[in-house]
C-alpha cells in the first residue's frame, strides 16, 4: 500500500533562518507531488506541484522553493524565513490519473518567531 510521510511534524524557527521540510511517498512510482500551506483564514494555498522529476510548478514563488531530488521525494526550502511563513504545511500526492484524488501527509507546523 502507498504511504506518505513528511517531517518534521513541528518546527520553531527564528526569522531569517533556513527551512527544509521533507516529504516522501512509498509504494508507488512517478507520483504527482504537491506542497500546500494552510494559514488561518486563507484555506489551503498551493505552493508548488510536480508531475515528474525536474518538473516543478511554482504558484507562490516569494522566498520559498521546492526540489524533487528523487522520484518520490519532495522538499520545501527557504534560505531566509519570514514571519509570514508561519503556518501548517501539507504535502500531498496523487497518481496523476484522471481521478485526481489527493493523499495527504500528516502536516508540518512551522512557527517563525
Amino acid at each position, binding site marked *: 500500500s502507498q504511504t506518505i510521510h513528511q517531517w518534521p511534524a513541528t518546527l520553531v524557527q527564528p526569522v531569517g533562518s533556513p527551512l527544509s521540510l521533507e516529504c516522501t511517498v512509498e509504494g508507488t512510482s512517478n507520483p*504527482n507531488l*504537491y506542497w*500546500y500551506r494552510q494559514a488561518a*483564514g*486563507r*484555506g*489551503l*494555498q*498551493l505552493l508548488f*506541484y510536480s*508531475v515528474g522529476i525536474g518538473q516543478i*510548478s511554482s*504558484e507562490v514563488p516569494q522566498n520559498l522553493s521546492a526540489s524533487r531530488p528523487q522520484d518520490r521525494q519532495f522538499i520545501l526550502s527557504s534560505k531566509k524565513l519570514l514571519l509570514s511563513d508561519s503556518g*501548517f504545511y*501539507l504535502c*500531498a500526492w*496523487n497518481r*496523476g490519473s*484522471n*481521478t*485526481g*484524488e*489527493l493523499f*495527504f501527509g*500528516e*502536516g508540518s507546523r512551522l512557527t517563525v518567531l
Partner: protein
Amino acid sequence: AQTVTQSQPEMSVQEAETVTLSCTYDTSESDYYLFWYKQPPSRQMILVIRQEAYKQQNATENRFSVNFQKAAKSFSLKISDSQLGDAAMYFCAYKDRDDKIIFGKGTRLHILP
C-alpha cells in the same frame, strides 16, 4: 487563472438535519474535476466526494451529494442526516488538465446536538 470561492466561513446545523455548503469556481476550461475534502480536528484531509465535469449526473456518496451546475460554475455539497462526526472544515477543490489542484478557503461546519 482558476479560482475557487467558498463564501461561507462557518455554518451550523442541527444534528439529523440537512445542510448545504456552497462553492463556486472560475475557469475557462471545459474538462476538469471538482472535489470536496473534509478536515476534522485531527487535520487529516479526507476525500468526501468527487465530480467529473463531463458528467452531468451529480455525484453521491451515502449521505453526501453534490449539486453541480456547470454553466453557473457552482458545486455545492449537501450533507443529509447530519451527524456529530461531520463537524469539520470542508474544502472545495478544483483540478485542471495539468494536475494543478487548488482549494477554496474552507467552511467550518458545526453540528449542534
